[in-house]
């Protein structure tokens, strides 16, 4: 009978791994491209409201964020628990939104595309939002977006 006797002395062929770095580099470049580093540290905490008629924010470079909510737990001891508005890295008053909008607009290729995304805590009182909206209107930043998460 024909045996299945293993031939002696046959060495296992090693896999050629010389293309492995290239492969990994490809994945790396993909992640480098899609990644967006969060450029601000959040000083307010917020849970955005939920909605159904949401649209995706496109053109990330044209979007500026305004955060509204109570200070984070670490900062609550100094800052209290009242609602705060955060622009870039610090707390601000509603009237400072105008300078913020102008500064953000400066770096933009197409100023008409500017979108202001309001990330506000769902329990914020409307007074703050109304104030911000009033200033945004005055500074001609008319495209706004109420940040929200999808319901169900």
């Amino acid at each position, binding site marked *: 009978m024909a045996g299945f006797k293993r031939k002696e002395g046959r060495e296992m062929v090693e896999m050629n*791994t*010389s293309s*492995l*770095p290239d492969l*990994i*580099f490809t*994945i*790396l470049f993909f*992640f*480098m491209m*899609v*990644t*967006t*580093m*969060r450029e601000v540290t959040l000083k307010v905490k917020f849970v*955005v*409201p939920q*909605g*159904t*008629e*949401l*649209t*995706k*924010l496109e053109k*990330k470079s044209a*979007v500026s964020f305004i955060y509204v909510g109570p200070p984070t737990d670490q900062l609550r001891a100094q800052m209290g628990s009242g609602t705060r508005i955060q622009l870039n890295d610090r707390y601000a008053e509603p009237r400072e939104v105008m300078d913020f909008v102008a500064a953000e607009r400066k770096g933009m290729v197409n100023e008409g595309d500017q*979108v202001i*995304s309001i990330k*506000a*805590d*769902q*329990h*914020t*009182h*409307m*007074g703050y*939002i*109304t104030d911000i*909206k009033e200033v*945004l*209107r*005055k500074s*001609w*930043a*008319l*495209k*706004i*977006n*109420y*940040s*929200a*998460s*999808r319901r169900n």
Partner: protein
Amino acid sequence: MAKKKKKMPGLNTSSTADISFMLLIFFLVTTSMDTDMGLSRRLPNPPDPNQEDAQVDIKSRNIMYVRLNSEGQLWVKDEISSGYVDFNVLRQRAKDFIKNEQNISKWPEKHVKNIDHLGRCLVTDKHVISVQTARDTPYFAYFQVQNELVAAYNELRNEYAKEKFHREFEYLDDDIKNAIKLEYYPQHISEAEPKKYKGVE
């Protein structure tokens, strides 16, 4: 006698994979794939300081008031009824109001309009939905109202697209989409107090 030229040893590249793996892992950790979602709105142009406050005369049949009090309760008023309502009936209320299918005299007036791509239509484009809030209205209540009103418009546009073109709104050509969006069912959500029309009704 010249030494025989030594063969250049190849660079050991076995660690390149490890290095790139490390970079990869760094980017994997820092990357945030979450796409930002939100409800897009457009604010009205700022008031012109040179202009005397423009009289916006709107017949009362064309206005639907939506008010939110400081408790976040919803109050809706049009010519037919007024009172506190639940959030989940707002969408239907708004749809009925905007559409005014039976041309009821207490809901927005209809008039004939020639629209490109759509032809002669009866539209209610003079309607206004006025949203008013108090300073201490919770934001989520306001957001819910905005969401429901936008949903009402979207549903109406979709219904119209199905009725007229037998297709979902989003699959229509851009020209037709814009005609429906801007001419047939334009959004008129006002957040300022509109002046009441005091003349003939």
